[in-house]
């Protein structure tokens, strides 16, 4: 018998708690496949956020830490500085990373911290029930922007990938999406590049991944993928924003 597909070794047998149609599961699998294929599982140390992925330590079959809200890049810094030959990654949502953890992520990037950040952007706070995030689009209805987000009242959605790409310490910054098989394949390739950037000690790496939240968006999983494509991608363009090929330091 020939095995054509199986669960990556870097995922445990635990059942995901994520809502039906949520794309966290796809992203978990992509990370796990990359860890497997790059032979990184035994040297990987992952750091979970506060948010929907707070329980990710149950799903990744490698050493895991759970950090305070937004602090994962600081925790990752502490780990990586002690264990420079390990593969250290954080998994963070947009409330965690782009709001309460903005200080930590900007400075980890500016320092060229040799860690990999998987940044899941679904435009709102999922676990707490769909409140507005810094990434919520203008006009988007959430429980704390019930009449739609306005620039006058809440300002503009933050473009993290573009923002961090400006830092000299950032070596690889991209924005991907998991709304179609083609984009999922591209996302996996980008995650691999990010891990490789860390292995090559080039600096800070981050992959922003546009993701769906059917539950809090009030859409079916299929409509949610469509909504991502029609509303998120025009504001959050996909692509690589920083690819530092040559520079090595540290």
């Amino acid at each position, binding site marked *: 018998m020939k095995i054509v597909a199986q669960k990556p070794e870097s995922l445990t047998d635990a059942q995901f708690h994520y809502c039906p149609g949520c794309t966290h599961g796809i992203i978990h699998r992509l990370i796990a496949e990359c860890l497997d294929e790059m032979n990184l599982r035994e040297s990987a140390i992952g750091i979970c956020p506060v948010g929907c992925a707070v329980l990710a330590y149950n799903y990744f079959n490698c050493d895991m830490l759970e950090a305070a809200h937004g602090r994962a890049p600081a925790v990752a810094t502490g780990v990586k*500085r002690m264990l420079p030959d390990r593969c250290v990654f954080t998994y963070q949502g947009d409330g965690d990373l782009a709001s309460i953890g903005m200080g930590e992520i900007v400075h980890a990037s500016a320092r060229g911290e040799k860690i990999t950040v998987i940044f899941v952007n679904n435009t709102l706070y999922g676990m707490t029930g769909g409140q507005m995030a810094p990434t919520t689009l203008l006009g988007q209805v959430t429980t704390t922007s019930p009449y739609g987000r306005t620039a006058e009242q809440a300002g503009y959605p933050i473009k993290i990938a573009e923002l961090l790409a400006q830092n000299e310490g950032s070596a690889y910054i991209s924005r991907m999406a998991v709304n179609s098989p083609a984009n999922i394949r591209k996302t996996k390739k980008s995650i691999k590049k990010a891990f490789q950037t860390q292995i090559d000690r080039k600096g800070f790496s981050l992959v922003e991944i546009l993701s769906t939240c059917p539950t809090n968006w009030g859409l079916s999983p299929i409509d949610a993928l469509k909504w991502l494509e029609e509303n998120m991608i025009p504001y959050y363009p996909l692509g690589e924003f920083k690819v530092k090929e040559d520079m090595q330091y540290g």
Partner: protein
Amino acid sequence: MDKVLMKGNEALAEGAVRAGCRAYFGYPITPSSEIAEYMARKYPKIGGTFLQAESELAAINMVYGAAAAGARVMTASSGPGISLKQEGISFLAEAELPCVIVNISRGGPGLGGIQPAQSDYFQATRGGGHGDYHIMVLAPAGVQEMMDLAIEAFELADKYRIPVMIMAEGTLGQMMEPVVLREQVAEFYNKPWATTGCKNRKPNIINTLHLSPDVLEQRNVHLQNKYINIKLREKRAETYMTEDADIVVVAFGIMARVARKSIMEVRKQGVKVGLIRPITLWPFPDDVVEKVSDTAKIFLSLEISMGQMVEDIKLAVNGRRPVDFYGRIGITPNPEEVSKRLLMLAAEEGLR
């Protein structure tokens, strides 16, 4: 043994180095900054990690990561910075990650001032952040003890898997005294729980989330049992002339030294005064206070605060003796005014 003249903050930093601490994460704040500056100079030469964090929050979370990776790690700050670190300290306490946190204390509330103070006593001894937890708190009273207790703090932290705070007034951080340099610590604890990569073992998880009510309760009971064990074994205090004392002053840190001077002065005038100097503020040495209350007639809590440790003394004395309080904030009480207070107390109680 040769002595070296050192500033308190530097003696503490050198103590940490001699305890095998090779990682420091911190943010500048008066009057603690010399500790960071010492590590910034020292670590590049001996292969340690010094990192100036972007914030106190980042610093304490870097400590969390380094401690999780199994390293001996330290951070230092002062009042307002220690307040910012409290989120991280709560997480460290729950995750049972050993580390040393230094508070070179100054007066609050708010931005307060940069004068020495002991008004972070409640924050230090009651946990400080959210949830039911304690950290161990050590209070040095001289520059030698800044070094000695720094070494001790790392041992206690690893032994009990607990964050240990050294709380020393700004005075101790800034003043210079001769110090005997201690031996480099050579033996370290195994940390099989550390997240270092899962090669040849099952993955380790360091986590403070317990959504199941039963598990959360079990975790809290586990922590409380650890605290009971620490209370049984680690209470420390120094006593001075308490055997025949009618009045017993309780004072820690720099105030214990002020008290000693006043006690010598007042004893010359025929008033029998003694001193209890708590070295561990948590666990509070209530056993020593309780024992002394068999013979003492009255206690005086002497603090650079508006009255915080006095509550722990009252709990220890448990109503058997009166407990008086004298303290100031911003200004450290001097020996003359403490003597005056002791003489007044003696007159009131008919002890002269």
